[in-house]
């Protein structure tokens, strides 16, 4: 077939299956501004910033125009510049303009575009409405005075997560984003995944910030502050503080945390190693008895919440294993129970839903949670900046004993397919290096939303599915319920790409997420211990601290609805 071209600013650009003119324009190296366009969401065409002028002087939104051979568009004419400025001014006319005190300051798209387009004054009267903030959720904070009605959050919640906690309500100038009857988020069916906050271009939805409490704890001489760091954090934090190459910077994180005053620093991957062993045992037991299959993984708290809301009948199929964070939290509290100081466990997570998980009643003993605070990667970035420590110049350090280095299997938990791969490594009879190599190409790796694989197990074949994105999980659940599909093990992660794509991370596109995944796989390749069961720390835990307490500390039974998000 002959190549087809369209003209962008008088330069021919080849059409290679781009879905819309906007993608083609961006491919041509022009950063056309948008608020409401995300390639993974449906096209909405609301913000009108991506407008282009065609050769007849017509104006059209490039995001919702299909590229055709011979098309001629201009992206930067006086008329377009005037329109874009006008749109920005109109948005700012009813927007809160207290940028310096806004959580989103510095990463706000509206702020960025106002700067890019040189908006020095807004000709219109400020008609910002006085609406209260919704701080009811543990995970996100909503401030409607900063909403520009782009609908990104609505489409994310509905299309990718199949939750639909928020939608457009009322009409015209009264239109708002809201839950049914404007209930607070905590009372809605929100699962806390925070993906709405990840795509929100302004400060209308942000991740709840708990940094002030941590600084307070760090300053308290009576407190022993113990911190655990999740796998996905180490391959994303550098995007904001240094390089964007997805490399593991765990050593620097440890160094910076120690300088900030954290007393003991551990790796959540150690908790993941415990999860691998417990979950594999549970899986093998269920296989033997052929009951409560397929087994769903239980690491993702947003998925747990989703199942509680929509599929309470499936709760019995979900593994009773606590998430790695909660397992490790319980182990840490147990380990330090005789400490003469008040032990505070902090978890640094890529995830907003973990904040709600830590607050669940199931994970409290007499009102005290196993994990006292959850900080997202973004909050840690803010703390690093606040501390003045230059992250890039930190000399890498190692985590503390007695929990030391985790296995490679524990580290890959941070990427979609990682839990599955870790479990397969444990289950498979073949323990050779070749088996590990082939496993990497058996379909569990990669950024696809749904992956399937099957592995031989004794006489049987195990059918395994890996999904990320709750809408993908929903499709799979329906296929299982209708009998169309059969699986033995299903890994579910709410965020597309798994934890590396968590809403607590710096915002990333698919490509950047893939780099983070590669970073974790590289760490796994460089680990001398590939399997959780070979980790000597884990073995000594089972012989010591966990003796007779495995069920009490590592397992949980989710009872269903009625828990706060």
């Amino acid at each position, binding site marked *: 077939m002959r190549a087809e071209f369209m003209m962008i600013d008088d330069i021919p650009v080849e059409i290679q299956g781009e879905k819309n003119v906007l993608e083609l324009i961006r491919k041509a190296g022009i950063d056309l501004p948008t608020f409401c366009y995300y390639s993974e969401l449906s096209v909405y065409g609301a913000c009108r910033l991506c407008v282009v002028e065609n050769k007849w002087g017509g104006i059209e939104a490039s995001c919702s125009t299909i590229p055709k051979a011979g098309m001629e568009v201009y992206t930067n004419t006086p008329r377009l510049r005037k329109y874009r400025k006008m749109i920005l001014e109109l948005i700012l006319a009813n927007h809160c303009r207290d940028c310096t005190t806004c959580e989103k300051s510095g990463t706000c798209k509206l702020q960025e575009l106002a700067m890019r387009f040189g908006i020095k004054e807004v000709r219109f009267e400020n008609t910002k409405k006085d609406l209260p903030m919704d701080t009811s959720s543990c995970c996100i904070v909503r401030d409607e005075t900063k909403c520009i009605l782009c609908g990104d959050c609505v489409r994310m919640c509905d299309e990718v997560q199949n939750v639909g906690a928020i939608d457009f*309500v*009322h*009409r015209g100038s009264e239109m708002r984003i809201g839950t*049914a*009857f404007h209930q607070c988020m905590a009372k809605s069916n929100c699962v806390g995944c925070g993906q709405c906050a990840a795509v929100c271009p302004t400060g209308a939805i942000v991740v709840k910030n708990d940094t002030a409490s941590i600084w307070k704890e760090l300053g308290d001489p009576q407190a022993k502050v113990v911190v655990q760091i999740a796998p996905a954090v180490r391959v994303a934090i550098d995007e904001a503080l240094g390089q964007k190459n997805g490399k593991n910077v765990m050593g620097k994180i440890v160094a910076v945390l120690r300088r900030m005053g954290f007393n003991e620093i551990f790796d959540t991957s150690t908790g993941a190693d415990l999860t691998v062993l417990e979950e594999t045992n549970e899986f093998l037991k269920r296989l033997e008895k052929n009951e409560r299959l397929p087994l769903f993984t239980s690491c993702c708290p947003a998925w747990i919440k989703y199942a509680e809301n929509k599929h309470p009948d499936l709760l019995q199929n979900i593994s009773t294993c606590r998430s790695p964070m909660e397992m490790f939290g319980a182990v840490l509290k147990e380990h330090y129970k005789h400490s003469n100081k008040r032990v505070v466990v902090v978890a640094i997570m890529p995830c907003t839903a973990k904040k709600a998980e830590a607050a669940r009643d199931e994970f409290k003993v007499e009102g005290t949670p196993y994990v006292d605070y959850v900080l997202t990667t973004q909050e840690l970035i803010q703390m690093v900046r606040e501390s003045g420590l230059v992250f890039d110049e930190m000399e890498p350090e190692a985590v503390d004993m007695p929990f030391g280095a985790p296995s490679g299997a524990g580290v890959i938990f941070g990427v979609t397919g990682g839990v599955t791969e870790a479990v397969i490594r444990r289950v498979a009879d073949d323990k050779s290096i070749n088996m590990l190599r082939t496993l990497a190409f058996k379909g569990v790796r990669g950024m696809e939303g749904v992956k399937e694989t099957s592995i031989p197990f004794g006489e049987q074949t195990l059918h395994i599915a890996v999904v990320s994105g709750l809408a993908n999980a929903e499709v799979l659940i329906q296929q299982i319920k209708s009998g169309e599909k059969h699986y033995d093990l299903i890994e579910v992660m709410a965020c597309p790409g798994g934890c590396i794509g968590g809403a607590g991370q710096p915002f990333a596109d698919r490509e950047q997420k893939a780099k983070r995944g590669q970073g974790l796989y590289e760490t796994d390749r460089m680990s001398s211990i590939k399997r959780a069961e070979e980790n000597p720390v884990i073995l000594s835990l089972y012989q010591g601290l966990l003796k007779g307490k495995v069920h009490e500390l590592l397992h949980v039974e989710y009872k269903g609805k009625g828990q706060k998000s």
Partner: protein
Amino acid sequence: MEQVVETHVLEEILDKNGRNKSSIISILQDIQEKYRYIPKEVFSYLAEKLDMSTAKIYGVATFYENFSLEAKGRYIIKICDGTACHVRKSIPILETLYKELKLSKEKITTDDLLFTVETVSCLGACGLAPVVTVNDKVYGAMTPDKTIALLNELREEVKHAENEK
């Protein structure tokens, strides 16, 4: 006042509309016809049966002016304020209604749930201007005096119906 919503009524309405989420507007219309408004309780029920989120249904219900989320009176009085009715003095009629029933633009239903007063922008009966409808029965060439008489008539009707019970 909590409206008692009967499941079988909702089920009938759902069946009639093919239990299809794309029929949400006509489902809400049927519910409104039955209860004169859309009771809060139906949202979660419909959400589950139609596999939609309550926020989405709430979005539809608040988008259309015609849907009411608040209980309406037994008699829904619509006063036309289209151009023809307006120039033939519909506003004094509206003011009379507000005064007589102690209502306002914000409070449109009487506490005893007998009357709801709404304005509409044209009923298409401009020849009869100014026009008032009561539960879709049309009253033409209205005046404030005639309106008071009409209200009294309706009140009598209620009394009569209650005596017969």
